[in-house]
């Protein structure tokens, strides 16, 4: 990952974390997981896969450090999601809808893994009181956001105006 790309990715992660922890988590209905979205979309860029995993780990760690859950829980989950994204990214390249659905499925998987890992480490209340709606509303919100922003995100990170353009 080049220095400039590194700064761009770092900036996006910080913005995602700040917006997530101030605006998004205060809303009850429209609740995307911006940090997870950034991690997933990063796997569509030309950033090296190991770096994507590293960014995913650090992003999760940052959220763990800001919250009250055990340190490392989200780091593990985001890393697993990033790995799944890297392994399946070829399937997302069929079009805008394909990318959006792929992001939605990965987000859903991430939330399920978070619930499982949280339960494993005695953090059953990690997802709050509305687990079921959270499990479906977050992937739907991420799906919509991905459809709107995936191309722009990839072009910004790769600094390539032709990247991820679907006809």
């Amino acid at each position: 990952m080049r220095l400039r790309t590194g700064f761009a990715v770092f900036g996006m992660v910080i913005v995602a974390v700040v917006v997530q922890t101030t605006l998004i988590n205060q809303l009850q209905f429209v609740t995307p997981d911006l940090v997870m979205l950034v991690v997933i979309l990063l796997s569509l860029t030309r950033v090296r896969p190991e770096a994507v995993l590293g960014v995913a780990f650090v992003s999760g760690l940052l959220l763990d450090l800001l919250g009250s859950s055990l340190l490392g829980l989200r780091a593990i989950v985001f890393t697993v999601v990033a790995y799944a994204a890297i392994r399946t990214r070829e399937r997302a390249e069929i079009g805008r809808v394909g990318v959006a659905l792929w992001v939605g499925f990965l987000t859903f998987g991430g939330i399920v893994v978070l619930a499982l890992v949280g339960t494993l480490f005695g953090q059953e209340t990690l997802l709050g009181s509305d687990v079921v709606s959270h499990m479906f509303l977050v992937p739907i919100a991420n799906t919509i956001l991905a459809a709107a922003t995936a191309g722009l995100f990839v072009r910004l990170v790769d600094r390539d105006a032709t990247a991820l353009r679907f006809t």
Partner: protein
Amino acid sequence: MLTRETSDRTLPTLITLLVVGILLVTFDVRTSGGGMVGVLRTGTQTIVAPMQKVASYVVNPVADMVQSLAEVAILRQENLKLREELAEALAELIAVQDEQARLGLLEQIYELESAGGDLGRTVANVIGRPDRVSLIIDKGASDGIAKGQPVLDTNGFVVGSVHTVTQGSATIVPMIAGQDGVAVVVGEQVGILMPQVATDEMRLEILDSRAPILAGERVETSAASVNFPAGLPVGQILVDAAPTVDTLTTTVQPYSNLDTLRLVVVLAWPPDPITAATGADAPEQTTTTTTTTTTTTSEDDG
């Protein structure tokens, strides 16, 4: 199609990061959030909190507007109900003011001094929610906030307690997500209130129960609680319950609503530094609690 670098090192990287993650979790569990992990948390929150304060200043009105639009019908009904409650509260306030005046006069006549039992209170804004189960407030150690202090909403209902403190911010863990139970009293029966998974209702367990409990009964913090002062309103019983052998279990709906919290009140409790020193928390927090009591009390006095 996209062209990217391919690599065979993703699996070893994944395994390494997972191992590091599990080690961190284990380390956090072993140190109970203290030590190096505590320093890391405090450091990160110190860096991010100013950004959150700025962002919160900008986005809170937006969040409020979106939320209000979604709940406009409910808000109208709530508004009417609140107007009625306000009128009743004003009437009660006048009665209390009258009694206070009489009390003051009687104290003056009999030359009595106030017991000074009031706790210091610090009002704080909610500036962030790092996850679904914790809140970040804009007051920290420099405002007298210390780890473990009780947190109430603006109606005086119990919200939770302070989890982590930095100089300018603090993280609150609500009781519906806390790992420890809250010692409460219903009537004259003392029990433990525990959080439940996937609901904001809590489970009340009363050991050595001798009488049934009815829906609607008020649940308050008990004098047996090490984390909260006695007599704070917590919630109300949802379902009638009778003791089985000598154990009673039922559900409680907390009064405080986390989704609409914008302001909280942090109590400087325990007020006695010696009590704080003998508490379950780490010894270094004793100093902070001492500062808290002094600062907040003097603010109130002023």
